[in-house]
């Protein structure tokens, strides 16, 4: 947030995926530190192009001077959201948690609706892009899972996030079984959406409501000796960065200090000789699309470090391209063209590696990359489970 430290080197601009394909967006340097010096006054924000930033944080990862263009822009986005009426698409995605909850309660119907032509038309009129299929709601969400107790000493409270809960609870179940196979106690603490979609759609108040609920719940578990484990890297970034930062949630620091990425957590337990997984061969050639928000977490690429231990597994790390979807960003009609162009470039980089399938920690990356390429897109945890012989119950 120190816009005065900017030396105008344009390194952030070179790293901004949106700037490359969206001529209306002036890029992180101008939208961030440059414009910031004019934003001190009380005037209403008129730069609607701030909404074009997808919050991928690539600018921040590249800046050599510690300026945080994405953070500056995020705050202006919230201000813009306060000062302007919200479009249907923004409202919808900000509330995606409630919507998904509804969708999965009525899964068969909701899925047919979203896939039908009429459904697509309605979505289109609301400003929602339909170039890749809308994710399918799952009837049996993870939050409805029965509690399973183990006799181990390690206790984990699993923050599974909306994507796994509503769309891919099978992955969530596998992760739980994997942790249990190491004699770790896993519980599913009461939780709601992390709040990132609300933030990304300029709805600070809603994001704060979500965050408060989660912090209250998770904080209890920490006090009772649980470690918090998340698996979606964007949820993770929100919990660790935004709760302490823009959302200013008291106790957020405690959450951040006790929250682990799943793979980071496994590596830690391996290093502490608490668990001794035996990885068996997995004969696959994969391209590992690193989610932008995994980079922004600053924990390295822990899933890659784990997968390096799997015999016969061949994977290439790709961290130069954003998939373009950025959560709900690419689902908005105004961003559709940019999201498509970026997605296609990310897919072309994957193709160059000769990989047979894609892996990525972020559900929306997988949706985008899998949808555009027609290739399988896995969560790294699925590959770990394959190697450890862990299957979903059903």
């Amino acid at each position, binding site marked *: 947030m120190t816009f005065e430290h900017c*030396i105008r*080197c*344009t*390194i952030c*601009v*070179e*790293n901004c995926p949106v*700037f*490359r*394909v969206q*001529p209306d967006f002036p890029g992180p340097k101008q939208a961030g530190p440059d414009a910031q010096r004019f934003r001190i006054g009380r005037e209403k924000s008129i730069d609607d192009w701030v909404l074009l930033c997808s919050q991928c944080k690539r600018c*921040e*990862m*590249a*800046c*050599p*001077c*510690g300026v945080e263009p994405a953070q500056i822009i995020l705050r202006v986005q919230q201000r813009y959201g306060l000062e302007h009426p919200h479009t249907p698409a923004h409202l919808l995605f900000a509330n995606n948690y409630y919507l998904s909850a509804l969708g999965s309660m009525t899964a068969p119907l909701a899925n047919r609706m979203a896939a039908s032509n009429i459904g697509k038309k309605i979505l289109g009129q609301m400003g929602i892009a339909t170039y890749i299929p809308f994710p399918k709601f799952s009837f049996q969400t993870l939050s409805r899972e029965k509690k399973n107790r183990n006799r181990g000493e390690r206790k984990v409270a699993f923050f599974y996030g909306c994507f796994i809960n509503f769309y891919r609870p099978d992955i969530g179940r596998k992760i739980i079984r994997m942790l249990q196979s190491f004699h770790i106690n896993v519980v599913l603490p009461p939780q709601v959406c992390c709040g990132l979609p609300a933030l990304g759609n300029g709805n600070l108040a809603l994001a704060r409501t979500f965050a408060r609920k989660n912090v209250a719940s998770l904080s209890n578990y920490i006090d009772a000796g649980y470690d918090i484990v998340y698996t979606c890297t964007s949820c993770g*970034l929100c919990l*660790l*960065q935004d709760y*302490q930062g823009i959302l200013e949630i008291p106790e957020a620091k405690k959450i*951040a*200090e*006790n*929250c*682990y990425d799943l793979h*980071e957590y496994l590596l*830690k337990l391996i*290093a502490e000789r608490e668990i001794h997984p035996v990885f068996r061969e997995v004969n696959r050639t994969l391209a590992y699309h690193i989610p932008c928000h995994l*980079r*922004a*977490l*600053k*924990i*390295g*690429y822990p899933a890659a470090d784990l997968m390096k231990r799997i015999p016969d597994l061949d994977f290439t*790390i790709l961290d*130069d391209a954003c998939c373009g979807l950025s959560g709900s960003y690419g689902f908005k009609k105004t961003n559709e063209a940019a999201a498509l162009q970026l997605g296609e*470039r990310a897919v072309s980089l994957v193709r160059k590696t000769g990989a047979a399938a894609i892996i990525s920690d972020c559900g929306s990356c997988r949706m985008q990359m899998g949808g555009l390429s027609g290739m399988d897109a896995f969560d790294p945890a699925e590959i770990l489970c394959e190697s450890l012989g862990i299957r979903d119950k059903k």
Partner: protein
Amino acid sequence: MSVIEYDVIVIGAGTAGLTATAWLAEQKLRVALVTAGEPTACLSTGCIDVCSRDDQPLAGIAGLPDGHPFHRVSPEMLGQSLDDFRQMMADMDMPYKGALEKNRRVLSAIGTFKNTCLVPATMEASPQSDDERIHLITFTGLKDFYPGYILSRFPNASFSSYDAGVSTTMGIAANFEDSAFLETFLLWLERQKIREDKIAFPAVLGLESAFSVLKQIESRLERPVFEIPTLPPSMPGRRLFNAMKDHLRRRGGVIYWNWPVVGVERSGRQIEAVTTEAQGRPNSLNARAFILSTGSFVGGGLYAKRDRIVEKVFDLPVFAPENRDDWFDQDYFSMNHGIGQAGIAVDDAFCPTDSPWNNIFVCGSILARTETLKNGCGHGFAIATGRAAARSCLERLK
């Protein structure tokens, strides 16, 4: 605190740090590169300056003042490191041209010539004198390239302008990655009936495929084509950085982005670990040896306070002209600002002199008396010292 163990940690992902890390990974060491941000290479022309103060790099180096760190790199080491660099870039399909025996000229965006040693093949046909007949292509709305500068110095040049639909360096370069765009462009170019001997472009011919794009233009227009490096964002600089980074990864090296080193753990005469901030718990990177390649003032390795200059990671003693009045020359554009000499003084093993630590090695533009600008000791110097420091580090670990 998350603890990560390596043999060697390299700090700073500039040309020096990237070279050192890739070489150590090749020697099968467990090595990681941690960096605050992206390096000055991204701002550069992509040309490799070894020692540009003389027409011959080797003679130039021989003529550097006593105490210049280049004297600590043997001619074999210099030759080997640049050969390896060229091989690496050729493997990435971004070949470089040139030789240590003689510097060559590259036309700059303001119409002057820059002296350098190795150039991206996309600049190989750059004119060597201002009477050459060249035709410039510019792009509608492109702010960072004014053909007028060059036209005013080249009597036999003319230009035409193409509307690429976008007007930024990045946007146009991204378009050139698209074969349909390239084809439409080529048809337009053929209609221009260009009479000059060579065709010049600002350096926007693609992100990573520039060499192959250039070859396609050459074969269709049947004459040499070359790129002119632009102000940042500079595509040739980014291509250089991206290629070095990919190479490093393929060799098994690991990079941690946006991890400015903020703390150090010491024991006796050894550095045991460096620490970096993260969102939750800080990271502690343990290693047996550390290579410091954080660059000079622009890179962020050095920081000037009112009365003294500090090295920001290990607080190593910094060499600088003693009298503050000697830091700056009266003339802003002078090459003799004393502060250009500031940096870390090292011995023959690239270990800092007068320092209590025996497992730190230093390379690149943070070295004392380098005077990057004055001596034209840029990437070539960083590559050579990066390699030399890495080798001496390996020998120490054995």
